[in-house]
């Protein structure tokens, strides 16, 4: 089979031949024949022919130049130098931005709102307690008064309470990623149900599903311990960067992963979720965190289909479309649900 590149080369050769001034009626007939052979020939030729025709406009740029020497690259277009009105897309792609902001300005952006916290006072507090909430499908970045940053995932709630000797955050539900400002005198404590995660200056995420807990550490060290502990008990676990700790009714599982791999658990901040050999049922559960339109795996036969990849959590439809295209899976829309069956 002839590759598209080979076809392009042949088309270019025809064009150059026709340009040569040694072009006969017989050549014309052969070219017509070649073009009629396959649409692939035709489109390749049309494209090159149009570009070559456009190249005739180079005269407009050459007009201001004297002599018949070829001008040096980059300088010859000077008299007519113009700037492209729109920035090129490729340039934009390299623009460095904070991930959240990048995600935020994306086309499919579900609004990331700076949540106006609900304020109340707590006994012993030195500042009012502030509560931050996000709705399903919403992310929120919060700047705390100590200089720390919190990023709330979909459907999450934290309460921030500063006391004299500690910075206390209650994670009531969902997940939050913290970039903690260093302050050795005042530990930063995230309490989630019966456990707490203690940090001094570091980056980590805590997720809470009822009593189940997940902690992902991406910088520094945090301490996971029973709520209210002082760090000296035997139930404290130190989690260095790269740790992914999962705690549920069965106990605590800590994995030490390469940092890049651990960070994949935090892709939600950029608008993505990542899967790697993840059973369909788990992947669906993950995506459902971010969507009011829930996917339901009805057929147990497909619940364990392994899948991997990088998905935009704001677009469950694309996920479903691909699933039904690539796997023996059938999707049925029902109200605000998408039901998945084996096909």
């Amino acid at each position: 089979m002839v590759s598209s590149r080979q076809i392009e080369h042949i088309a270019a050769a025809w064009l150059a031949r026709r340009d040569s001034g040694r072009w006969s009626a017989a050549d014309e007939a052969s070219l017509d024949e070649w073009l009629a052979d396959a649409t692939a020939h035709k489109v390749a030729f049309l494209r090159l022919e149009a570009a070559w025709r456009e190249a005739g406009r180079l005269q407009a740029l050459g007009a201001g130049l004297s002599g018949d020497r070829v001008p040096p690259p980059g300088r010859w277009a000077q008299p007519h130098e113009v700037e492209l009105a729109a920035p090129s897309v490729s340039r934009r792609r390299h623009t460095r931005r904070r991930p959240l902001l990048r995600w935020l300005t994306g086309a499919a952006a579900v609004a990331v709102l700076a949540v106006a916290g609900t304020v109340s006072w707590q006994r012993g507090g030195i500042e009012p307690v502030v509560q931050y909430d996000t709705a399903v499908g919403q992310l929120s970045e919060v700047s705390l008064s100590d200089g720390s940053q919190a990023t709330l995932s979909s459907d999450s709630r934290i309460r921030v309470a500063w006391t004299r000797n500690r910075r206390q955050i209650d994670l009531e539900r969902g997940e939050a990623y913290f970039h903690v400002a260093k302050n050795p005198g005042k530990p930063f404590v995230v309490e989630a149900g019966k456990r707490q995660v203690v940090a001094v200056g570091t980056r980590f995420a805590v997720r809470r599903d009822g009593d189940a807990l997940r902690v992902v550490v991406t910088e520094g060290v945090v301490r996971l311990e029973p709520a209210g502990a002082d760090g000296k008990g035997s139930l404290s676990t130190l989690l260095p960067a790269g740790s992914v700790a999962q705690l549920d009714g069965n106990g605590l599982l800590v994995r030490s992963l390469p940092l890049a791999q651990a960070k994949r658990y935090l892709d939600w901040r950029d608008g993505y979720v990542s899967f790697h050999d993840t059973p369909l049922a788990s992947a669906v559960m993950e995506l459902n965190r971010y969507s009011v339109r829930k996917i339901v795996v009805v057929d147990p036969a497909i619940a364990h289909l392994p899948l991997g990849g990088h998905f935009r959590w704001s677009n469950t439809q694309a996920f479903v479309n691909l699933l039904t295209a690539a796997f023996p899976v059938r999707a049925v829309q029902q109200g605000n649900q998408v039901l998945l069956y084996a096909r």
Partner: protein
Amino acid sequence: MDDTLDAWFIREIVVHEAALTRLLQRICLQRDDVHDLRQEVYVRVYEAAGKNLPTQPKAFLFSTARHLVTDRLRRSRVVAIDAVGDIDALNVLIDEISPERRLDGRQILKRLADAFDQLPARCREVVWMRKVQELPQKAVAEQLRITEKTVEKQVAKGVRLIADHFYGEGVGHRAAPQQHASLPNEAVHGQQPTD
């Protein structure tokens, strides 16, 4: 030959080549595959348009690409799931990344100048003499003291490289971007978090 169809194909379809190429690059990392896929998309669009000219060429082009990609995915499961974000991105491409590429005259000139400056030295010389000075290939050969056959070869090369740069912004000649590189959809309408 149907000149109307041919002109339509260049005016409405090939102008979106840069966006199309970027999309395909994300889906398959082999450069030659991208080239093959692109050709296949063009073939399908051209053939369909021959029967019935689409009223919304750009949307038609990208939906054709989408179908083609989905077909491919069905055949090879390995690539499959990784491309989801890109199928998604495809919609973004239609709406945002590929703004109507109606370049005005000055922009076209700038683009051409860039394309021209990217050519290898000898090729550049030959193209200049042919297109700007309008010398016949024979005269070009005499001036440069090379054979007419060589001139013809340089013209063929120039045609290909200019087309790649002019329509594709030279995308085909760069390494494929990282598969999950951020979608180039920022800076469209930013909303700042006001925390």
